[in-house]
Each structure stands twice: as structure tokens, then as C-alpha cells.
């Protein structure tokens, strides 16, 4: 025991820790930089870069670290690169860590919900802003445990530097054992030293997890804030699912919907509709698609689709699933490419330059922001790491260059308009589906879009939550005169709100016309059959 303590406190061994940490730091730091580059190359749209990164990964992940160490130390000098031992070991460790870190980064990035990425694109975020503001903050949070793993493994792997004469802890231990024959005490002592080091990494990992925990500070004003101690393994606090929190927040009093007394009746009378139709007919064209075609492999999704929407007009797209409604909407703001035909928004071919050449993703993003096409998704696609208010205000700052004060003011105003000012600081996962969709609408409206595209905005909602969302959309149509294209299964809502409905089947519009006329008196047998099915399926509470 005293021998063990003697070796445990021996300066010779403790100094070895310094070199162990040096090699580890070089390995992790270098590995992180290299890993970032590799991950970037693999995720890039240029296949050559991806192929090179892949090849690197195959080589460095597929060969033993000990060989790489010896290579860096003994083989590189033959081509004129003679590195000091610590640098050679650090280089080998970095090269070895890089592919692992790259895969972690890639998994983190790919793990971020695609819907949020699409939503970011629709808001006009350039790939860079998207990565920095939406993907990275979420990816990093999910990657911390893996990073902790990697750091521990790098620390242990640094012991292999002993084969290239780096006087780190392991090499010192073996030499000491050779000269004193005190194997047990020495290896126990150095083992304990390694344990102390890896334990320290674990503590740092937990601390960072706690630091980045979105629930640490946000929105839990009445509830106990999450403390660092909650991360200790023997504490049984649920760190992942937020059921408890959701329940807690559901109890928040929803302020009585301020229904101003002077609001005009929501359904329009026949005369009003006629007058409205006449006005719209004189308006400019907001959106126009001509002979739009698109196939996924052999499957045709859009087959020569023509659609014209005028400023101030509300068009409802109806049709069975797979009829091309969503694809059409996504083509309008160029979230998807198409095979043939043209799409014009406000007279411009979004995503093409004057010669009809496709723009870069960055340029398309900028154009989306300028032209102003807002989009609301079936799955809400709120940025999960941002509060309701930040979801609205963030894009205003990052895409439209607003100051924080202006963006916050605009966000508050819009949240108030969708009746959610009391939930401004809540994270999306603490909101009900209907609330989330209302925030999503506020977010889409924030930059004052010229057209708002709504892709089945109520299909993912529980029946009792549908109305609160439809109500918001109805106001936008009738009060604000916003140009909207809505794909929906809510027939009566379409009847009340839309100026015109277009019925899609097999990627083409098979019938369109004034909403009430088509819905009550369909001419195409497919439309008639679809409507009758919808009528029998209709959930009574869906429309009031």
C-alpha cells in the first residue's frame, strides 16, 4: 500500500500526465478540425469532395492507431518530415480521431429534423445561416455524449504514443516497472491516474450537457429549474422526455381569445364574394405555373400543371394524397426542383438567373427572401431549440438584417395576433400542436410575404386543435387580403375561405373554379367521388 502511494505521488509519473494530456489535446483538437473538414466534404454537394473524404475515412479508420503512430514517427522522416515525438504522436492521433469525429458530426447534422431545414430554406436562410443557426446548435447538443466518449477514448489512445518514445504515463510506468520490478504498485498507480483523468472528462461532459440544456433556464418560471446535480447518475430526473413539463405548461391559462366585437362576420355573403372575385380578377398575377412536370424516377408527380393565382386570391388545392399538392407548393418556392415548365412568383422565375440558368443554393435562398414566399408545413417544423418568440424573431435578424429590438417587436406583435403572446418564451416541445402551428404561421408571416403557401396546415393536429389554426388562417384571408395557396382536406373551410378551389389528381388540375360552385356542384366525376368520400368522413368538429 505504501509502495502504491509512493508511486501514486511520484513526480516522475505525474509529469507523465502532462505529456499524456498534450498528446490527447493535439489529437482531439486536430481531430476536431480535420473532422469538421471531412464532415463538410462528405455533406457537400460536390461528389469529388465526398469521395475523397470517404477514402480518407476508409484508410484512417481501417488501420490501427499504433501503425499510424509508427508511420508518423519513423516513416515520415524518410520523405523529409521529421516531427518531434509528441507532434508525431499528436498528428497520428488527430488523423485517427478525425474520421470518428467526422462521422459524429455527420450523424449530428443528419439527425436534425429535415423539416426544420426545409422550414429554414423556405424562410430564405442561406446554407450557411441554416448550418450556423438551426443545424449546429441542435446537432452540437446531441453530439456532446459522443464527444465525451471520443475524448475518453483519445486520452486512453494517447498511451500508444509510448511506442514512439513519448515519455507519457504508460511509457514511464513500464520503464519504472522494468527497473524496480514493482509491477503491481506501479500499474495500479498509473491505472488510478488514468481513471482520475477520464473521470474529469466525464464531469466536464455532464457540465456541458447541463450548460446547454434548453430546459435549464427557459420557461420554467414556476417549476424548479434543472440543476447540475440532476445530471448525477443516481438522480432519477427525466432528462429526455418532457412529458412532465408539457403537462405543467398545458395548465397555463390560455387567455380568452380576444374576439374584438367589431370583427366582421367571418363567412362572406354571396354579394361580398362576387365583389371580391371582381376585384381579384383585376389584380396582378402573384403566382403562375406553366406546364410544370416532375417525376420521381418512373413515377410522375406533376404532369403539365398550369395554375394562376392573382394577388389577394385564396386558392385551395384539393385532392387525394399523392395527387401532387405538396409537390406543387414546394416547387412554387423552389424547395424542390422540377423537370420541365416554369414557375413565376411576382413575375420572377425564382431560382433562375435572367438566362434561365439555375442559381446556387445560396442565391436561391436570397431570392426567396426578397420575393417573399412564406410557407407553413403540415408538421409545423418549428426550430426546436428556439423559443416561440425566437422562432419568429430569429429569421428576421438573420435573413432580413433586422435589429434585435425591431425583430422582437415584430415577433411580439405577431404572437399576439395568433393569440400566443403568453407563450412567447416557451420551447416548441412545450406547446400543443395547435399552438405550434400558430407560431409557425406567425413565423411565416413575419417578413411580410407576398404569398403564403400552406401545406395541409391542420392534418397533423388532433381534431380539437384544428379550429384554432383554421381561425387564424381565416382572418388572414378575410381581414388581411393575403394571397394564399392552401392544400387541405377541410372541405367546408375551403368553401368558406377560398375564392377558388383547384382539384388535383395524378399531378394535374382536373377541375377548378369558384370555391362554392365546384364544391357544391362538381362536374368531374373524380372530384364528385372525392368530395362525397370527404363528406362522409368529415369530422364534425373540424369546421364550425
Amino acid at each position, binding site marked *: 500500500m505504501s509502495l502504491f502511494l509512493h508511486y501514486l505521488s511520484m513526480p516522475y509519473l505525474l509529469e507523465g500526465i502532462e505529456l499524456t494530456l498534450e498528446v490527447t489535446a493535439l489529437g482531439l483538437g486536430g481531430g476536431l478540425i480535420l473532422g469538421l473538414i471531412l464532415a463538410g466534404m462528405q455533406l457537400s454537394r460536390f461528389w469529388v469532395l465526398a469521395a475523397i473524404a470517404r477514402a480518407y475515412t476508409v484508410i484512417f479508420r481501417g488501420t490501427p492507431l499504433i501503425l499510424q503512430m509508427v508511420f508518423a514517427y519513423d516513416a515520415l522522416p524518410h520523405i523529409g518530415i*521529421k516531427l518531434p515525438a509528441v507532434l508525431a504522436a499528436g498528428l497520428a492521433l488527430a488523423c485517427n480521431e478525425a474520421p470518428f469525429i467526422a462521422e459524429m458530426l455527420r450523424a449530428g447534422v443528419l439527425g436534425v429534423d429535415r423539416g426544420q431545414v426545409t422550414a429554414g430554406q423556405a424562410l430564405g436562410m442561406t446554407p450557411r445561416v441554416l448550418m450556423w443557426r438551426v443545424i449546429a446548435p441542435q446537432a452540437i447538443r446531441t453530439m456532446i455524449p459522443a464527444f465525451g466518449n471520443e475524448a475518453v477514448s483519445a486520452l486512453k489512445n494517447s498511451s500508444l504514443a509510448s511506442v514512439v518514445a513519448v515519455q507519457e504515463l504508460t*511509457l514511464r510506468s513500464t520503464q519504472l516497472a*522494468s527497473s524496480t520490478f514493482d509491477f503491481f504498485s506501479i500499474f495500479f498507480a498509473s491505472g488510478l491516474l488514468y481513471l482520475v483523468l477520464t473521470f474529469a472528462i466525464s464531469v466536464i461532459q455532464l457540465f456541458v450537457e447541463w450548460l446547454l440544456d434548453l430546459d435549464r433556464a427557459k420557461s420554467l418560471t414556476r417549476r424548479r429549474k434543472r440543476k447540475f446535480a440532476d445530471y448525477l447518475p443516481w438522480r432519477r430526473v427525466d432528462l429526455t422526455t418532457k412529458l412532465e413539463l408539457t403537462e405543467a405548461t398545458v395548465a397555463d391559462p390560455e387567455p380568452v381569445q380576444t374576439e374584438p366585437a367589431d370583427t366582421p362576420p367571418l363567412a362572406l355573403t354571396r354579394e361580398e364574394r362576387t365583389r371580391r372575385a371582381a376585384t381579384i380578377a383585376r389584380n396582378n398575377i402573384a403566382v403562375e405555373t406553366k406546364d410544370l412536370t416532375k417525376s420521381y424516377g418512373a413515377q410522375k408527380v406533376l404532369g403539365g400543371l398550369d395554375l394562376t393565382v392573382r394577388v389577394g386570391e385564396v386558392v385551395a388545392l384539393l385532392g387525394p394524397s399523392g395527387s401532387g399538392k405538396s409537390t406543387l407548393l414546394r416547387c412554387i418556392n423552389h424547395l424542390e426542383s422540377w423537370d420541365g415548365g416554369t414557375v413565376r412568383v411576382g413575375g420572377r422565375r425564382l431560382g433562375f438567373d435572367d438566362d434561365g440558368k439555375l442559381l446556387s443554393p445560396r442565391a436561391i435562398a436570397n431570392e426567396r427572401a426578397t420575393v417573399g414566399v412564406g410557407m407553413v408545413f403540415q408538421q409545423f417544423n418549428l426550430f426546436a431549440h428556439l423559443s416561440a418568440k425566437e422562432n419568429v424573431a430569429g429569421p428576421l435578424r438573420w435573413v432580413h438584417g433586422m435589429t434585435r429590438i425591431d425583430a422582437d417587436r415584430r415577433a411580439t406583435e405577431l404572437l399576439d395576433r395568433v393569440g400566443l403572446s403568453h407563450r412567447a418564451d416557451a420551447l416548441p416541445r412545450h406547446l400543443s400542436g395547435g399552438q405550434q402551428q400558430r407560431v409557425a404561421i406567425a413565423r411565416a408571416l413575419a417578413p411580410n410575404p407576398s404569398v403564403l403557401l400552406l401545406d395541409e396546415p391542420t392534418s397533423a393536429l388532433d381534431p380539437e386543435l384544428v379550429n384554432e389554426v383554421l381561425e387564424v388562417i381565416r382572418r388572414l384571408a378575410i381581414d388581411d387580403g393575403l394571397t394564399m395557396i392552401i392544400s387541405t382536406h377541410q372541405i367546408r373551410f375551403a368553401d368558406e375561405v377560398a375564392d377558388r378551389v383547384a382539384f388535383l389528381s395524378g399531378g394535374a388540375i382536373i377541375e377548378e373554379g369558384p370555391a362554392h360552385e365546384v364544391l357544391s356542384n362538381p362536374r368531374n366525376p373524380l372530384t364528385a367521388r372525392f368530395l362525397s368520400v370527404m363528406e362522409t368522413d368529415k369530422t364534425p368538429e373540424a369546421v364550425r
Partner: protein
Amino acid sequence: MERRVLPQTQGMSRALPWRKIALGATIAVGMVAAAPLSAQAAAPAACAALQAKYPDWKGKTLVNAINPHTPGYETIDPKDPNNYIGFDIDLGEAIGECLGFKLTYKPVTFAALLTTLAAGQADIVISDIYATKERAKAADFITYSKVFDGVLVAKGNPKGINGINISMCGSAAAENTGYVEVPLIQALIPECKKAGKAEPTIQLYDNNANCIQAILAGRADTYVNDVNTVDSAVKAYPDKLEKAIAVTIPYSVGIAVPKDKPKFRDAVLAALIEVQKAGTHMELLKKWELDVNNFKEPDILTAD
């Protein structure tokens, strides 16, 4: 003996009051004077002549790659682990002193000694390495010691091993990767087959200590290596180990130098001759309690 100065001893002296420093200095001077031997014993005139003839290494600090797991030849100093001690260390420093260079040490596995030298990560290897024609393909050798091997076995020699012969059939031999004993034991395989006995197996380890541990743990039956190494293992574990026999191996121990530096090789050879002439070599053998019969006049061994 000149050796790497410890950072912490430097720091310590700074903290001492001046009187203690004076006292310490006196003691240190006394110790240096009383040191049993030093390279100064080599004829200063001859060494001065050598330094004039081979001026390239004067005042330089060279790197000596060693496998510091061989007590008596090269290990770290248990009392001061930042220093290396042993016969090879002293001999190298005596040669260095004669030619005017100092040495720092790079601890590597035995198998990596010559690759480290070939990669230019070390300038010289003085680490109880046997000079063979095979190894001379990787480095030039200046031989300086005869080889006597000891056969280390567990106390009582349960397998009755009495040399590198068919008494080893069916036993497990621990050896270091790259040791010359490996092919000698491998050569027994056909002999054992012919005698209708089981083949000997070889376990390869990274250093001397692991080979000894293999016998202590009952994994291996024997370990054949330099007799002095075997003796020191027996000294460390007198209840568990014994030397079955000493055998002669037709090799010499050599100092390895890069193949592309014949001038350096010649300088080291000349310096070694001077060190031997001054009696230093013999004194060092006695100091480290090695058999004086190991003494050998130097030769050059190259691949051609």
C-alpha cells in the same frame, strides 16, 4: 557522469537559502571528485586528437535510442526516474566524452531500436543489441562485447530445460520481438519434429520485463537472454526463478550507427578503442557487476 539535468532539481536549488547552496555545492564537488570513474579516465591527449580528427560531433547533443528494460545495461534510475543508468549508458557517455558530444535518450521498444535509427529519430543505439548480419542491413555495428546467454526458468526448472536444444521441445519460450534468440528457438522446430516431440512455442513481448513476468505468471517456461539480465531477474525473484544454464551465442553486442555515416562509425570505433585503452570499459563491467569475460576488442560489422 554527465546526465540529463532534472527540471525539478533546478527548481529546488532556487528555493534553497545561500548557505545551504554553498554546503550543497561543496558536497556535490566532493561527490564528483569521489565518483568511482569517469570518462576523463580515457587518455585526454588521445581523445583531443580524435576530436581534432572528427570535429563534426564536438559540442553536439546526440540522441541514443535505448530499450530501457534491461537492469544492469539500461533502465531508468529507480531513485531518480528522470535519469537512465547502466553499463551501456556509462559506456556511451564515455565515448561521447571522448569525442566531445553529449547524449540524450529515447526509450523505444526493442524492435523499434533500428527503425528509429534508420528514420533519423536517433543518432546512435547503445542498448545491448546483438550485432548480426541480418541487422547489419539496417545499421552498421561497432561490436564491443561477447555474448553469453542465460536460460531463465521457473524455480526448480520443472521442464528440465538445459539449453537451446531439444530439451525445449513442447515448452513455451518468452522472447522479445526482434531478439536473436527467436530464430534460434524456431530452428528447434524441425529437430523436435524429427525427435517425435511437440514443437516449442514462442511468445513475443515488447520488453524484457514482460518476458520475466510471463515466467512468473506461469505463461512461459523459459526466457533466453543475456546472462546478466537473467542473473538480475533471478536476483529480483530468488524464490521464483532460476538460471538453468549459460550458453554461448555466436554473436557480439554492438553499437549501432546509421549506415550512411561511415565517418561517425569510424569516430565511435576510435573512441571506443581509447576508452578501452584507458581501462574504462573494464571498470564499467566491474561497476555494474557484469562478467569481465564479456570484454571484447571492437570490430566493425556491416552488411557487406
